[in-house]
């Protein structure tokens, strides 16, 4: 297994700027089989620019990434590949907000939703991996070690990427949210504008050294962006400063009528 992973050496972000690179590193067998795919035939699926520092190599084909129970983080992981033209399947997340997925960058036109994969979900997952480049799964039940290894082998064979919303013992990479702060909302005024999140990535092999980055997850328009360098670490105890996003300029007027915001008389606001 390790040998196969080593063959899809991560591309450094400086080198390729996140663009899929000619398939010089993909396995020949893969290249032949993937000829009908929509994505250019490379060994990695691209990720959003905001996630490039956390996942310097993108998402290597055949790998498993665990992203905990943070729905938007899972969607952000899948968004890069979807933007590049890959088909994504989302299984076991019946309450997924498709509008949020679209905001994060997933193309709803290339999305398959399987709300309930049922008790035979390993079969379903294997079928989905055959057709889709990326599968986001919340396993309905904890798989046995044998089933888990078999599914990892299926993922490698089909050259897909499995993003697990939850934990997965054999994941090559794990992402988690360490801290989160909402911006734009007060006690009785404002509204949810953006969330600043510290995401920590660790894993095996090349990803063994934990990396941590601050992201807007989501940003004010639903997109996922990196918190700019000057504002990387919010001062301890201080509330998030929404001025740095330029949200202050958006004003309440852009929301249009019918979203009255603070215009409602309130007897006992904070």
């Amino acid at each position, binding site marked *: 297994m390790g040998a196969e992973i080593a063959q899809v050496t991560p591309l450094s972000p400086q080198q390729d700027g996140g663009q899929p690179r000619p398939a010089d590193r993909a396995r020949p067998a893969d290249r032949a089989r993937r000829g009908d795919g929509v994505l250019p035939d490379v060994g990695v699926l691209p990720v959003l620019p905001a996630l490039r520092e956390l996942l310097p190599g993108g998402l290597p084909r055949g790998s498993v990434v665990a992203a905990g129970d943070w729905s938007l983080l899972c969607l952000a992981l899948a968004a890069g590949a979807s933007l590049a033209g890959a088909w994504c399947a989302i299984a076991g997340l*019946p*309450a997924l907000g498709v*509008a*949020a997925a679209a905001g994060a960058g997933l193309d*709803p036109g290339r999305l398959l939703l399987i709300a309930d*994969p049922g008790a035979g979900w390993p079969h379903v997952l294997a079928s989905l991996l055959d057709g889709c480049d990326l599968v986001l799964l919340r396993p309905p039940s904890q798989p046995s070690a044998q089933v888990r290894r078999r599914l990892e082998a299926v993922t490698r064979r089909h050259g897909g990427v499995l993003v697990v919303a939850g934990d997965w013992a054999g994941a090559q990479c794990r992402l988690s949210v360490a801290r989160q702060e909402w911006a734009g909302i007060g006690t009785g005024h404002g509204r*949810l504008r953006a969330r600043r999140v510290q995401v920590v990535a660790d894993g095996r092999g090349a990803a063994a050294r934990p990396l941590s980055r601050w992201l807007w997850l989501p940003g004010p328009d639903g997109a996922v962006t990196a918190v700019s360098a000057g504002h990387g670490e919010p001062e301890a105890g201080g509330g998030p400063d929404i001025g740095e996003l330029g949200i202050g300029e958006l004003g309440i007027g852009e929301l249009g009528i019918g979203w009255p915001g603070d215009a409602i*008389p309130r*007897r006992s606001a904070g």
Partner: protein
Amino acid sequence: MGRARGAARRVLAVWCPDWPPGTPDSGPEARGFEQVVAAVEKFCPRVEVVRPGMCAIGATGPARYFGGEESLARKITDAVTALGFACRAGVADSLFAAQLAAQAPGLAPGLASGPAPGSAHAAAPGPARTGAPGRAGLPGLIVAPGGTRAFLAPYPVSVLDVPEFADLLPRLGIWTLGDFARLPAAEAANRFGAPGKRAHRLARGLDARPLAPRQPSADLSVHVDFDPPADQAEPVIFAAKTAAERMHAGLAARGLACVRVQVQATCADGQDITRLWRHAGLLSALAVAERVRWQLDGWRAGRDPDERSPGETALTGGITRLRLVPDQLVRAEGRQLGLWGDAVISDRVARAATRVQAMLGHAAVMRPVLAGGRDPAEQVTLVPFGDSGTPLLPAGRPWPGRIPAPAPATVYPVPRPARVTDDSGTTVTVTGRAVVSAPPARLSADGGPWLTVTAWAGPWPVNERWWAAAVSARRRARFQLVTGDGNAWLAAVQDGGWLIEASYD
């Protein structure tokens, strides 16, 4: 075969009290009546279904063939009773009279289960036996030719089933159909208009309109029998390919194509396993065979004892019959993909999606279509893979008051009940003028642990579709709440209770 002008026209109505008059025309109840119609069709191919529970045939021809009206009525009622449905028959000169004759109470000792208690006609006072009453043993009534007007005369005008007449005519001193029929036809038409003219024809024992028989539809399905039962999938798939070719040839001969195919496999133990397959283009014979393979594979996977979910249908004892039924016929016009704009689904994705559909069912694999609407839950319409659908609420309209971006990442299909209290533990309420009783301090979703509310905004009142009070009207006051664990929620107060609509996790 024509009928001499003026010759008595005879109608036989079959009434099944199992279907009360209010039964909707579509739906499973109405489809159950198909069995009765099929049984009656054996006697006369042109059956008119009046409503679920009542159908009629022209009786003149069949009566000659089956040895008289009484014999025909007896044969039909026996055939329907054999299916397990209570049934009565009535024969008269008009459809209206035949229906009443079929429902005439208390004439047939042979009728085991009486007329449905909900039937308005059953409560009507028994008419005098002016026609030839049914003989003992015949569940039904035969009104002699020419006796129809006299048969109808004692019935109250309410049987016309025109609400305004049921009220108006008695006030004019017209209580029975006989009274009404005595009015000159022209006067009835003058005074009561077209409905009055129709009702007057009915009261005189004529037909308000000629019988409109339903055409028996040609059976376009094909089937293959396996003897001995096929244990392996391969022979079934091979046979499916030739069967699909035959089905397509049969359709093409009529200039038709089908959008869906129903694949029905019958197992040796009598179990039927059915799946509907749809394809945006035409299903070629190979494509049908491939779908049969997926369907069988799906059942095989379901048969694995360690991985089968309870209640799942499983293949048992080999397959004895495979039947392909074309569904949703369209005129064969060929199909051309748009040069631009059509989302092209690669074969690889389609194959994977269809295979999952074989395992979980057609509606298990959905494609989202972004829609309009104000709720986060409304803003997406799910369409089964392979179907095409347009959202009910169009996207791209302003939708003032919709939840602004960023959208919540988790939208509960059914809002979760919640409790939100203020500092003193009292539930927070919102007045009709959108005034909050107290700042929300604590939140418990679905009876879960209490979380401290660290930030909140709202209320944003929503009063939607007030004009459709019974269907979809809604008054809500929305809040955004941030709790101590860092999660943010979209909550709403409706009818004094708190709901969590979505979570920004």
